[in-house]
């Protein structure tokens, strides 16, 4: 691994480009749960050739975009506790029914952020091991969704690889991630390592390997 410092960190895709790539990989008719934060961007890049239905853990299926200021209903919020809307054909349910959708394998895709992803598909995204522990629905989503996509920067703010041989942080789930979308590449978790599906134009393969723990292959 090369010694990464601010001088040799390359710039790959911006977060909108990553979101668009994920959006293009969600098939028509999918039921999708987008994690709070960066993954929420994905919904802005869904093309007209498909209809996607968004699930929010707090009992909302068919979630729509944020409301205008004057249309805010504090009883209509998403899992991030922000005001949202509901689209025609949507529905409300209670928490056990909502998590039946997740845990029963009915959510086709969930897109989550990550602190670390191991080469075996282990995910750590809920705890730095410090502060007040708070897990929310992350462990249910990774255990239950049919496909777990991760959307993340390839490197931590400190310039360390997030794609690692072994997660050092507390796990959210073991062997749960199927695909990782970073600013440098789209990579599948396989038995042979991180398989590159796409790589950003300005990122040489050798660089990608150098900023990733564990084998990367094409």
């Amino acid at each position: 691994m090369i010694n990464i410092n601010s001088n040799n960190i390359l710039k790959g895709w911006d977060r909108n480009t990553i979101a668009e790539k994920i959006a293009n990989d969600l098939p028509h008719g999918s039921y999708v749960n987008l994690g709070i934060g960066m993954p929420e961007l994905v919904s802005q890049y869904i093309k007209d050739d498909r209809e996607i239905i968004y699930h929010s853990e707090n009992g909302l299926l068919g979630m729509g975009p944020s409301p205008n200021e004057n249309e805010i209903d504090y009883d209509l919020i998403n899992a991030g506790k922000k005001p949202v809307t509901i689209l025609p054909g949507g529905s409300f349910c209670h928490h056990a029914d909502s998590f039946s959708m997740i845990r029963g394998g009915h959510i086709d895709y969930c897109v989550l952020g990550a602190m670390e992803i191991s080469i075996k598909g282990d995910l750590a995204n809920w705890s730095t091991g410090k502060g007040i522990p708070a897990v929310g629905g992350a462990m249910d989503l990774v255990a239950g969704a049919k496909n777990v996509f991760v959307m993340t920067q390839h490197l931590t703010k400190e310039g360390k690889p997030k794609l690692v041989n072994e997660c050092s942080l507390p796990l959210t789930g073991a062997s749960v991630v199927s695909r990782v979308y970073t600013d440098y590449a789209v990579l599948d978790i396989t038995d042979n390592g991180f398989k590159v599906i796409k790589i950003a134009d300005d990122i040489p393969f050798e660089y990608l390997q150098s900023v990733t723990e564990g084998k990367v292959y094409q």
Partner: protein
Amino acid sequence: MEINKVKEKMTDLLSDVFDGATIMVGGFGEAGSPIELLHGLIDHGAKNLTIIANNAGNGNIGLGALIGQKQVKKVICSFPRSPKGITFAEQYNKGEIELEVVPQGTLAERIRAAGSGIPGFYTATAVGTPLAEGKEEKIFNGKKYILEEALHADFALIKAEVSDRYGNLFYNKTARNFNPIMSMAAKNTLVQAKKIVQPNFTNPEHVITPGIFVQKVIEIKEPIIETIAIEEGLTYP
């Protein structure tokens, strides 16, 4: 492109059904029983089916007719006796059809568990009875419970009152019964609805089965009423 789960032809609805499939059939007695889908399944001809339902058919229509056609090798149900449940009784008495009797609440909960990602749960129901034989026991707070496992299915045949193109379902009165939980438990949930409406007309507070649990829907405007049909001597095919 818009999601549209509504099919025009029964053959499209049932196209994926295969020999040896496990099929849940909604309904409790005649209420919520998808008679037209069952007749479609007779026309389809799939054999060696395992049926999960509350009952085992009445008369020679619906599930009773499917069994009469010898398409069913096993029934998992709580109550396989009906006043006119002739086809099941005949085959059962000859040893031609298998039966697994499950307490009604355990049946419902095993189905719901399958839809909710729960492979097994403990229950007090049937403890100390013949239906607990061979089941794992566990003590919680000094009381004995038995382990029951999830009941999955390849298909669920569901009868609803109203659907939209997403498969959001509404039921009529006690015709709800097993239909919502079976919709959750099957890989493919196939629905007959009396009416298809636009999604703007499905109140999100009142949806009983959200479309996420439904794969295909067909409109059957005037479904057969079992009591009247049996009185009139209707049989199928």
